[in-house]
């Protein structure tokens, strides 16, 4: 068992007492848990196929060509058609489809015409389809997952760089501090959006989608780590002059040990309060970039791309913008509530006499 120190336990208990934040946290955790196994709920691949007394679980497996189930084609089985096929033939074979039997990429053009369709639970399109006749719920689910993953990866990278450089600046001071300060001043003046546009125009054509996402992440991190360093620098400066640091140094502790074992835990509260807001800004940024067409490559599902479609079809397909906007508001509100609660529960001012 991890033994938390009493201070932290107190903070956590306080966090639990702030109902709005706590329940937001629970809901967001559930959402994340759901998203991480989204393939089981939203997918064009069947959960279970029972064919000729053999069991198949296609969800996370390699693709099954149609020939495997007695169909006449060698490409990926169309499980929705297969289900119907088995039903029509009255055989012992059966297919269990997920709740939403569509993936985020396939065009399901009803009547052979590609256009947005309103929600249609009977067909399995619970939030309707987008302008390319793709299921909106599927695109929302996978788009949100990408955005959240992106945001967390962004946060971790930014904090890692920010903490290391910020702490070092505060701890070493002097020339090192001065140099980095100037460097950061210049660096933070480079316009971020232009850099993204420039970098995206030189990415080689054969870069795959994960590589593109990684590059986008790198560029965003590269231009976002600076703000964190200043908080860390001041905090470290403050802590450095305290007696317990002097004591540690007298005992003979080395620099890394002092920074990571003594200073860092004491400045953590500042850090933790910033985290949710970093996540919010990362989600907004990636959505905005997608909206402008500089984000994730087509046809990756994303919130920004859905928002863009939605605003372009406000009159004819209001369900697109409603779904995308609703999801964005929900996620951002949850994260913000959590952030507020963390800030409040970690706020040291509660113990001061001024309160």
């Amino acid at each position: 068992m991890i033994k938390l120190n009493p201070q932290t336990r107190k903070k956590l208990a306080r966090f639990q007492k702030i109902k709005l934040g706590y329940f937001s946290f629970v809901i967001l955790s559930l959402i994340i848990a759901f998203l991480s196994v989204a393939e089981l709920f939203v997918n064009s691949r069947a959960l279970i196929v029972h064919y000729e007394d053999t069991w198949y679980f296609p969800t996370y497996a390699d693709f099954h060509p149609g020939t495997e189930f007695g169909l006449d084609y060698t490409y990926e089985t169309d499980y929705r058609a297969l289900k119907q096929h088995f039903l029509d033939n009255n055989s012992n074979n059966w297919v269990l489809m997920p709740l939403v039997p569509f993936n985020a990429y396939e065009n399901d053009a009803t009547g052979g015409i590609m256009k947005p369709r309103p929600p249609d639970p009977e067909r399995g399109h619970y939030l309707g389809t987008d302008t390319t006749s793709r299921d909106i719920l599927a695109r929302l689910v996978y788009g949100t997952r990408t955005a959240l993953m992106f945001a967390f990866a962004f946060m971790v990278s930014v904090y890692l760089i920010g903490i290391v450089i910020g702490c070092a600046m505060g701890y070493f001071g002097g020339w090192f501090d001065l140099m980095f300060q100037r460097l950061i001043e210049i660096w933070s003046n480079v316009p971020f959006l232009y850099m993204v546009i420039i970098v995206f125009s030189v990415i080689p054509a054969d870069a795959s989608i994960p590589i593109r996402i990684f590059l986008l992440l790198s560029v965003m991190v590269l231009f976002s780590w600076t703000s964190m360093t200043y908080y860390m620098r001041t905090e470290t400066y403050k802590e450095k002059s305290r007696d317990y640091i002097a004591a540690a140094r007298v005992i003979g502790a080395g620099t890394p040990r002092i920074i990571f074992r003594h200073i860092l835990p004491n400045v953590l509260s500042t850090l933790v309060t910033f985290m949710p807001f970093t996540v919010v800004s990362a989600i907004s940024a990636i959505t905005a970039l997608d909206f402008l067409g500089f984000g994730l490559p087509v046809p990756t599902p994303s919130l920004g791309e859905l928002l863009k479609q939605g605003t372009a079809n406000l009159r004819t397909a209001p369900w697109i913008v409603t779904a995308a906007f609703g999801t964005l508001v929900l996620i951002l509100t949850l994260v913000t509530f959590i952030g507020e609660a963390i800030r409040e529960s970690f706020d040291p001012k509660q113990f001061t006499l001024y309160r």
Partner: protein
Amino acid sequence: MKPHLFLPFLLFLIGCSDPSSDEASLPTIDNTAEVEAYYEANPDFFKFKTLDDLPQDLTWVDGSDLSEVGSPNALKGGTETVRLADFPRTLRTVGPDSNGSFRPWILDDTSMAMAHRHPESLSYYPGLARRWAVDEASKTVFVELDPEATWSDGVPITADDYLFIFWFFRTSYITAPWYNNWYESQYTAVTKYSDHLLSISIPELKPDTDSKVLELRPLPRHFYREVGEDFLERYQWRFAPTTAAYVLKDDNLVKGRSIRLTRNKDWWAKDKKHWRYRFNIDNINLVVIRDTPKVFEAFKRGDIDQFGLTLAEYWYDKLPDSDPAVRAGYIEKKWFYNVRPRPPYGLWINSDQPLLDDQNIRLGIQHATHWQLVIDQFFRGDAERLNTANDGYGPYSHPTLRARPFDITQALAYFAEAGFTERGPDGILQRADGTRLAFTLSSGYEALKDILTILKEEGAKAGLEFRVEVLDATAGWKKVQEKQHELHFSAFGYSLELYPRFWETFHSANAYDKAFLDNGEVNPDRSRKTQTNNLELLAIPEMDSLINQYRAASDAETMMALSHEMNQLHHDYASFVPGFQTGFFRLGHWRWIRYPEHFSYKHAAGATQHFVHWIDESRKSETTQAKQGGDSFAAQVIVYDQHRAR
């Protein structure tokens, strides 16, 4: 330390200063001597003769019997608001950044050439020329300019304005290599007989010899006296005197926002037979609105008078026949079938990329792209399959050649020939060594990106993976011009010509620097030639020789046969996947915008191209009142299919 830090910012500021802003400080230039010297240095090209030297046996043609363009019912007046997607970066009509969406307003669609093709019959009706004659023996076209013709500033248009273009378009000052090349290679002489009589010679006779000369537009010699080294900056924002009915007055240009063109009431051609019922609207307000959905909303409010509805999405969903404004007759919908060279929308395969240099792979791709589904789902069956890269040229287009259909079995067979026999874990074909059958499919058409996702989904069934890359228009075009693409979805905008061009797209000279060695073998060190329209890196010696024959041929029969042969060869090489063609255009307009009885013309590219529409102010106030009072008119949804191909 501090002073050093300021340095980069200082440099940055210097880099940003705009040299064009202080035009007054430019040195004075007068190129009169330079131009005259150039004429003298090229006596074989620039010839000066007298009217007595004119051949006597010429057969003069004047096109005056062709029917009028426009309607006698047209009224003059009114203001039309039109959307510009982007503010023009220059008012020059040549040189960098000049070939944008604004240029047609001051050049292509509005200014006058010697004569113009009649949009109904393709014969020439007079413009700046009063009459003309073709002398086949000397490969020369003689032209008599209309003595009444003047520039918008009142200066008469003379033969000198035509001589001048052969200096102007050949100078390096204009930074336009295509113009340099065209005007150096396509003409052999220009002769001035008098101020209003000249002749121009071309290297080879063609079925449309006259078009090579008659479609030339003059340049105002007096305005371009200051052309020199700094041409690009000096003329960046100068509006040139024009032959067009519309002029741009100084204070009518708000940079970044709008441009207002006004009708020149003293336009010299205002009473000429083929021009008098056109260019009817007094003011054309071009407003920059970048976002198309926003333009559509402005149109529905009546702020913008007309809106193109060619995309199915707009015609069927956003402005359906059941729309209240359409049902009440406030907005009219028109669907017009036309006949003209079709832009070859399709996939241009770079045959110099690994794997794509294998003909079996290219053939497999032909069968693995499901264009019929694109036509059915995206275009709702309104478009048709394109069969070759040169459809719409009448007898010059191949009569029987058909694009290969989507067929998974055949695609798999071709891919297997190339060694792709096994499907990987994701269903994409791979070779024994693990090479995946995956290509980047790029495009600069943001509005058509859904087409690419359909192709991607369907291609996967044949074990082919497309990595879709949607770029903005400029970046997309740059990519193919640098020949960096694998497969690119694009089309060329072909102008109205009798027969297709092949050299630009199919000749090896436009594919590689030196495609073949002198003994006819493939040059192992050849490098891709950039900035040309040979997007397939097509280099076949047989094709080259056919193109040379085609360029040298002068009779229509031979050229047709050669054209068919080249299209067949191109089809066999399989480096272009023909996509779709739309044989029509569609328009929505408010009811105060009026069109001639038959709406448009057989060979028109769009309804507004010939400026035959007009504004009826009385109908405008009638409509506004009706809207307020809830009255309605008869709905007008009209399909003009008299020119539809069956």
